[in-house]
């Protein structure tokens, strides 16, 4: 049968030579290879004790940011929800009352802010879309859960600890990313 393109290669099947048919040299060669691998650097690490460093561009779980005084940055503009290709973000805005000025930075704030981690593809577009530097992505994974409901993260779960009342935790949450940026 004539070939269509003339690009087909004819496979040459040589009969094996005597040494090849013995198989022993090949077996010894293979055994040498596996033996060499015994002394190579191990690819695995002891996980809970040792952790692999994240790459500086790693996009993990979302965090809602606060400013230095502990006020929420988010103004419920909805740009992140629009930018989200997976439509994982929903929010409800509310107006700030005068007594709430220490809680929210802008006049409008997100009364409800939910991210469905089952939908989220961790693309980071919300982070880029945010004009108020309110949402960014940390270096933690979404932990496992038993129900689907557990993967819909509410605002309380997403918010970063308050720098005024809970300085230590805030530093931890903040510091990891910055240390990494510095290392770069």
């Amino acid at each position, binding site marked *: 049968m004539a070939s269509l393109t003339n690009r087909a290669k004819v496979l040459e099947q040589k009969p094996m030579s005597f040494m090849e048919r013995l198989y022993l040299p090949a*077996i010894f060669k*293979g*055994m040498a*290879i*596996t*033996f060499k*691998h*015994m002394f*190579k*650097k*191990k*690819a*695995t690490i*002891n996980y809970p004790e040792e952790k692999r460093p994240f790459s500086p561009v790693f996009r993990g779980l979302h965090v809602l940011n606060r400013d230095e005084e502990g006020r929420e940055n988010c103004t419920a503009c909805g740009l992140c929800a629009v930018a989200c290709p997976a439509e994982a973000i929903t929010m409800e805005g509310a107006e700030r009352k005068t007594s709430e000025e220490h809680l929210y930075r802008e006049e409008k704030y997100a009364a409800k802010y939910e991210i469905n981690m089952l939908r989220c593809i961790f693309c980071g577009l919300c982070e880029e879309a945010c004009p108020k530097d309110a949402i960014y992505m940390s270096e933690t994974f979404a932990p496992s859960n038993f129900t689907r409901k557990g993967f819909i993260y509410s605002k309380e779960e997403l918010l970063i600890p308050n720098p005024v009342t809970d300085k230590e935790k805030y530093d931890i949450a903040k510091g990891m990313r910055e240390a990494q940026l510095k290392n770069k």
Partner: protein
Amino acid sequence: MITMDLLAIDLAYGLEKLLLIGGIITVSLIVAMYTTYAERKVAAWMQDRRGPNRAGPFGLLQPVADGLKLFFKEEIIPLTSNKTLFVLGPALAMVTAMLTSAVIPWGSSINIFGRDVSLQIADVNIGILYVFGVVSMGVYGIMIGGWSSNNKFSLIAAVRGASQIISYELAMGLSLIALLMMTGSLSLKTIVQQQMEGGWNIIYQPLGFLIFLICVFAECNRTPFDLPEAENELNFGYHQEYSSMKLGLYLFSEYVNMFISSAVVSTLFFGGYDIPFVDEAALSLSLGANTVALLGFGALFAKILFFLFLFIWVRWTIPRFRYDQLMDLGWKKLIPLALANMLITALVILWLNK
């Protein structure tokens, strides 16, 4: 009075043998235990992983944990199985695995309380034939277990295993005949003593060793010949229906088999308890006979450990044979090779004697 004396000697003799048997069983069980650990560890290293390292320092308690897990698992006996035989199968596999250790000389004799205690349970003058007899019994553990599970995969695996073991027994026997023509004795102790004087048998019988080693791999159901337990074709092999410690016994007997066959190979071809490049007689004058005997045991143990490593090493290097390739290798390659080896050895022996 004479009978009393006889009885006394018999008692001490029996006690000594009992202790020896207990010791050897303990040692082989512990070695088998840690071979499972070594298997996982070496496999990990060869695949650039770390292997078990959680239970105890370096994961050394891993085999204990595995054993405990097996003990605490639920014991399931399939409803349609043949209950007696279902229980008998793993027991037979374990017993036949242990029985071979009786004729292996684990060292020369040790002098305790003025008695020469031979480190061999029974120095029968048909030692090798005994090994073959027990190995041929080993088929039943597999066959009974596979058949009584009443599962077609188990049955096919059992039949595969049995025919594999029987086929390779032939080549194994033939490859040894050449060796036996040289030594002129079937007693393993005599064979070791001859090697101490005249050099190891591997020098004179490299081809015989190779054939024997391949057959040992096949007899132990190890990769590349682990067809009876080919996971991807037969789910799990002849012990598919087994659970808990009965499964443990099957898996364990494989490792005991490996240990014992390593001991047989070292004894037959690598001088047994002979310490290489050392004259034992001269050494025992300076160090004392007991120390040398212990050193000899250490030498044998080192050889055994090397072969155990070889078993594992080969397992993680060479892929499994296809069944027709296995039979082809056994019947059409190894048996003619063994016969040729036998013929050449016979001719050389005749020519040297002339």
